[in-house]
């Protein structure tokens, strides 16, 4: 900025406070899903934020205007102080959501969480078939445990979302997954196609569904939505690769959500650490409010003024906010490019090529999966 500029600076538009805090408490997890949203370079326990820092972050979040906190990971129950954090969130009026694999939970832990003020549990499933689920999760008898825990969650009086991440190797069983969600008493079912960043991008060829598979899945969801209307909410995220318009990633860059990594970095999105050229601020040295308002990384792609064409003049620019920066980087090499998920992007053909590849290999055996383990991370980077 030129401090001597004779032109007065344009008025800075007010920045709306974030609605949600995504608190990634740890990267530790007993499961090894090959599409994990965590970065390839994972934090070890020793570099995690301590309890006092998380408590301060929760207080700052509530004061800033955050209304919901998602305790995530890794596996958030790996943190010994989870109860204390839930209690503090509740004290600040925050709606707390536990995003868990469930395998470490039991009735006593769930009763304590409910008592501490936990509002909701999102339980992940890897499949409706136990053998396949355990193969993808890399955890023996994990699926059976999850079924037990789903009952225990309901017994503790906690509302339950059943989350299924879907991909080429399980999509055929989507009707069974929807039935499973219904059977365990979920009030919400989330069907999320794998998003291809991080570990999932490494495994894209083994995970991406064919167009025919996707169409059957869309039909299964439409049928279930009709049948379960008013009883179970079904949220369904279609993969970008098959879309003509990008999704509003995170509801727009630095518009609604602030993400804190296990080591305390604040990000506008959990994958933003993959973007080069950013010095992400740490909650160890700055307040959440100062970060949200002033951090150059948060302001970099906020709003619409950063946009290139075709976004800049597009009538959808405040609908999709230009799509996903991490995907733009991963595919075009430029995080500031139009998301290639958009049919108007000059790089959209790359999505179409990946889809064609997926269709071509759909009948053959899937390539081997690279599992999410701290020790394999070095091999795939």
């Amino acid at each position: 900025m030129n401090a001597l500029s004779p032109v007065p600076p344009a008025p800075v538009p007010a920045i709306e406070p974030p609605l949600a805090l995504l608190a990634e408490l740890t990267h530790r997890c007993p499961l090894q899903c090959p599409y994990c949203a965590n970065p390839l370079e994972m934090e070890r326990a020793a570099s995690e934020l301590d309890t006092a820092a998380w408590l301060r972050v929760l207080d700052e979040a509530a004061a800033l205007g955050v209304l919901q906190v998602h305790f995530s990971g890794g596996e958030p129950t790996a943190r010994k102080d989870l109860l204390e954090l839930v209690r503090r969130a509740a004290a600040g009026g925050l709606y707390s959501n536990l995003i868990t694999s469930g395998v470490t939970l039991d009735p006593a832990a769930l009763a304590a969480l409910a008592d501490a003020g936990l509002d909701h549990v999102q339980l992940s499933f890897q499949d409706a078939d136990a053998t396949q689920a355990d193969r993808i999760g890399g955890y023996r008898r994990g699926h059976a445990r999850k079924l037990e825990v789903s009952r225990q969650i309901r017994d503790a009086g906690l509302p339950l979302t059943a989350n299924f991440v879907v991909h080429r190797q399980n999509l055929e069983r989507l009707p069974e997954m929807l039935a499973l969600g219904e059977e365990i008493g979920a009030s919400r079912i989330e069907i999320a196609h794998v998003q291809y960043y991080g570990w999932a991008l490494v495994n894209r060829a083994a995970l991406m569904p064919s167009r025919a598979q996707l169409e059957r899945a869309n039909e299964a969801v439409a049928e279930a939505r009709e049948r379960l209307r008013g009883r179970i909410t079904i949220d369904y995220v279609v993969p970008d690769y098959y879309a003509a318009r990008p999704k509003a990633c995170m509801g727009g860059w630095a518009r609604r959500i602030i993400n804190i990594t296990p080591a305390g970095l604040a990000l506008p999105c959990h994958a933003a650490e993959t973007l080069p050229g950013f010095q992400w601020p740490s909650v160890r040295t700055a307040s959440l409010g100062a970060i949200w308002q002033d951090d150059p990384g948060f302001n970099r792609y906020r709003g619409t003024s950063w946009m290139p064409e075709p976004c800049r003049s597009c009538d959808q620019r405040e609908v999709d906010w230009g799509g996903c920066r991490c995907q733009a980087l991963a595919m075009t090499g430029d995080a500031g490019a139009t998301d290639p998920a958009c049919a108007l992007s000059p790089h959209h053909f790359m999505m179409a090529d990946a889809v064609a590849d997926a269709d071509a290999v759909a009948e053959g055996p899937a390539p081997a999966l690279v599992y999410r383990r701290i020790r394999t991370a070095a091999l795939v980077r």
Partner: protein
Amino acid sequence: MTGEGAAVPAFNRGFRMRHDPVRKAWVVLAPERLFLLDEPAVEVLKLVDGARTVPDIVDALAAKFNAPRDTIAADVVAMLQDLVIKGAIRL
């Protein structure tokens, strides 16, 4: 449900109404969702306490706003039915 009935509306578990002092607005917080409430919704939902019946709520609003009871009843029933479909309340 087409008329008022005598149902007692209540929030489902996982749905919570609160005032947001930062935005100076009432919101309903829900799993991975948030409903921003307009003024009529706030007036109705403040009376959804798991004890009052739909007719109780209509009576209270008709008195408070000095408005025709039938008009209030139609609005309240439509709003509650919509929230049932969204999973926020039960009747």
